[in-house]
């Protein structure tokens, strides 16, 4: 089963002498999660009453409570106007990463979290990096935003640039490493249990241990660590933008 970690359905394309590889499973799951989110939002949007004066339906109340929670938890320190502006972006990042992490608990062979692929997490981190500069330039003006790299002293410019780079790098690697580490650990435990099953003496113990430990690890790394890492990813995105707009 550890062989499955390296075995992938990869589409190779040659564009102008460059070899470009697409991991079809990761792409399919990432697009599937996007479609799921679109369907979810469409379903929630359809439940809203047309008339704003009408008494709230159950879906409207759920939506309002969820947005209120996201606004206080993810965008705590922001002024009201900016919090409203950033709420869709940060909530979408949170929900997308959350559902991507939760895909790994589905018992379907070859299906794995898209977030255990470095390209997906780097894409998300680069998107956050772009938004940091967009909001920094918009809220403070381009000149003041660029000048913030010369603070507190102009000769610290290289340090600021390296810090910027390392921040984005660790933002991507944190999510990737946590999810991939959990997946590898779960796979190794199941594989060890499978190997121990070959000895008749150990078979019942190995079966029970493998099933219970495998389920426990899957729940821990899939549900709990997945939710925590999604929260951390969204909170850090919000914190990075907050530093840029202050």
């Amino acid at each position: 089963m550890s062989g499955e970690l390296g075995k992938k359905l990869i589409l190779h394309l040659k564009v102008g002498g460059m070899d470009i590889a697409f991991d079809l499973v990761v792409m399919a799951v990432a697009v599937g999660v996007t479609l799921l989110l679109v369907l979810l939002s469409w379903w929630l949007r359809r439940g809203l009453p047309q008339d704003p004066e009408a008494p709230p339906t159950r879906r409207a109340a759920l939506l309002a409570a969820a947005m209120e929670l996201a606004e206080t938890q993810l965008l705590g320190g922001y002024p009201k106007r900016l919090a409203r502006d950033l709420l869709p972006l940060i909530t979408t990042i949170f929900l997308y990463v959350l559902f991507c992490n939760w895909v790994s608990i589905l018992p379907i062979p070859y299906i794995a979290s898209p977030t255990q692929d470095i390209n997906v997490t780097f894409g998300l981190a680069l998107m956050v990096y772009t938004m940091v500069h967009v909001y920094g330039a918009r809220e403070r003006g381009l000149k003041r935003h660029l000048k913030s790299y010369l603070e507190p002293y102009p000769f610290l410019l290289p340090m600021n640039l390296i810090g910027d780079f390392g921040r984005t790098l660790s933002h991507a690697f944190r999510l990737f490493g946590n999810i991939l580490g959990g997946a590898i650990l779960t796979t190794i435990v199941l594989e060890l249990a499978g190997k121990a099953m070959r000895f008749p003496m150990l078979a019942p113990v190995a079966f029970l241990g493998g099933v219970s430990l495998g389920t426990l690890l899957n729940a821990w790394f899939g549900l709990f660590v997945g939710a925590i890492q999604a929260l951390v990813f969204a909170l850090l995105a919000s914190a990075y933008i907050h530093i840029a707009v202050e």
Partner: protein
Amino acid sequence: MTGADIIAAAKYLAAGLCMGLGAIGPAIGEGMAASHALDGMARQPEMEASLLRTMIIGQAITESTGIYSLVVAIILIFVA
């Protein structure tokens, strides 16, 4: 033992050392963060929600160094 065997053995040894030594620092750091957060929560239970959130973010950032060593270990085993 041929040269390839020695290189393969060295890879696994290096990956194990990298992960084992790299896990020490984050483990101590995260434990300290949790213990101080618990201190704060015991003193001021009304601050629990905000302390928990800040503790989790701090621990996630502390974890970065451990994640770096995990990435290096993965590269050693699967890529190098």
